[in-house]
């Protein structure tokens, strides 16, 4: 087990390198001159040239790449082209909010989705199953901002249980949790829809396996069969799929943050988009890349818990 953990942790380095390189390349596939794109057509030649130097565009590509990697190794995310502030301070300020939101969404999704999915599979083709499938498909089809708006409409505007725009930073735990409910629910319900669907199809497949039939033939109570044989064997694909979808949820959190006006990476990246601040855009890509690698790491490590074969290798 220890060897597995060590090996998996070492794998993080090439993964990070790959996604960092990817972020570097992506931001540079700009047709035309990025400095000109930022300043607009009416900018003077000197201003454009000065910006190009600041962006490092006057240096050859491989030098830019080297500088990029060196900065990242130091933990430096560069400076915003617009505000000239170090990007890492802005990121550090808002990262906790995005993390708590995404984490809540994933947690809610798993806690609600897995049991519902199992129930749906066990009661296949029942009224409950049909309802559940329709609801989960709807949950998958709804655009992220729409669910957030609907929740806002019902719980804030109509019922007044939650403030429409709530203070999130520098407040006590209770207020912070209170303001996490609706956004968390918004993300969480979308995650639930996906997890429920995946759990259902996984459990359906596992139920067809011979060992389930044997367990039942042995005379085991259904609950025991479910817990010991079905659920444990379903967990591996479920963990995989939850991990995959968690990445998707990170994207959804951007929309949720916008609708609920929460501080977070989402607001930062949208701001960078509108200002064409390529430095911030690149650095945020890097941050998202780290998050993705981290989520994949967690997923793989949890195989160690869920799959005993990995443990004893």
């Amino acid at each position, binding site marked *: 087990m220890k060897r597995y953990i060590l090996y998996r942790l070492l794998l993080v380095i090439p993964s990070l390198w*790959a*996604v960092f390189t*990817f972020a570097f390349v*992506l*931001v540079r*596939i*700009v*047709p035309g001159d990025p400095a000109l*794109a930022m300043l607009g057509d009416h900018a003077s030649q000197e201003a454009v040239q000065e910006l190009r130097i600041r962006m490092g565009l006057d240096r050859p590509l491989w030098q830019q790449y080297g500088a990029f990697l060196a900065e990242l190794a130091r933990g430096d995310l560069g400076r915003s082209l617009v505000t000239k502030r170090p990007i890492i301070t802005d990121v550090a300020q808002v990262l906790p909010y995005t993390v708590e939101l995404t984490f809540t969404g994933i947690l809610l999704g798993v806690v609600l989705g897995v049991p519902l999915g199992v129930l749906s599979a066990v009661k296949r083709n029942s009224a409950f199953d049909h309802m559940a*499938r*329709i609801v989960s*498909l*709807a949950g*998958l*089809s*709804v*655009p*992220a*901002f*729409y669910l957030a*708006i*609907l929740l*806002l*409409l019902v719980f804030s*505007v109509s019922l007044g249980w939650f403030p*429409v725009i709530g203070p999130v930073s520098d407040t006590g735990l209770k207020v912070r949790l209170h303001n996490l409910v609706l956004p968390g629910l918004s993300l969480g319900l979308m995650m639930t829809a996906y997890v429920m669907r995946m759990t259902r199809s996984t459990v*359906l497949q596992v139920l*067809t396996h011979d060992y389930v039939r044997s367990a039942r033939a042995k005379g085991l109570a259904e609950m025991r069969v479910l817990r010991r044989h079905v659920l444990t064997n379903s967990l591996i694909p479920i963990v995989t799929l939850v991990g995959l979808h968690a*990445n*998707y*949820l*990170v*994207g*959804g959190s*951007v*929309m949720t943050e*916008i*609708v609920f006006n929460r501080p977070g990476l989402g607001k930062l*990246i*949208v701001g*960078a*988009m*509108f200002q*064409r601040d390529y430095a911030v*855009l690149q650095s945020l*890509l890097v941050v*998202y*890349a780290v998050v*993705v*690698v981290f989520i*994949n790491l967690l997923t793989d490590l949890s195989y160690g818990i869920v799959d005993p074969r990995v443990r004893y290798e």
Partner: protein
Amino acid sequence: MWRAFTRDRAAVGGLILTVLIVASAIGAPVLAPADPLEHHLGQRLERPSRAYFLGSDGYGRDVLSRILWGGRASLLVGISSVVLAIMIGVPMGVLAGYARGRTDAWLMRVVDVFMSFPTLIMGLVFVTVLGPGERNLIMAIALVLSPQFARLARGSTLAICGWEFVEAARAIGANDVRIMARHILPNILGELMVIASLLVATAIRIEANLSFIGMGGSAEAPTWGNMAREGIQFLGTAPWLTVYPGLAILFAVLAFNLMGDGLRDVMDPRLHA
């Protein structure tokens, strides 16, 4: 196979809904009761009524008409970007699967890194990098979705290459391009349709999200996403401005998802348990 499809009620529902939505988008010039761009400043923010079936917005424009025309824009973007994604991704995937070896390994590694990023983030980056406008939006979404087609095409190609008629074709002396075009491509079509349908749903959703942020295609012309964006400031007073466009997005995405699901169930014999 058509029989199997019609037996699945959800899939048929999806097909009907899809047809309805596409038809209403195509028929927008005829079906829309009013000009979607015309301001009627005397009738701003009207509740849904006989005159304004789904209400009017902050400039007095008829919401129903804007939804119909918006459907045109959203569907156009959704379908075009998937078509473009297929044109980019499938050749890459077939090439990778056919050539195997290092070409395959490197290509798929890039695809993997690509696909590990959240689609919305990728969409945001591409839209920023490419610039504003509807054409760039379609290109951006196509770039986001093409890896999925590449992966699918590669997997299928690998499988098909093992089939005997490919060996036979090579034995007769058919060259590589001919083999890929005449033997591999036709056999991918089924799975391609499934993924295409599901990804049109995704494309529509990405477009809606991007338009909602304000990075969508057009400023004045309605799309479902930017209708929701304009409507949100009136959430307390005129909720219909956001609720109805959002509902349209939901139904369109749902329709293509249902259809794609139905197609997938038909293609996969195991699921007829």
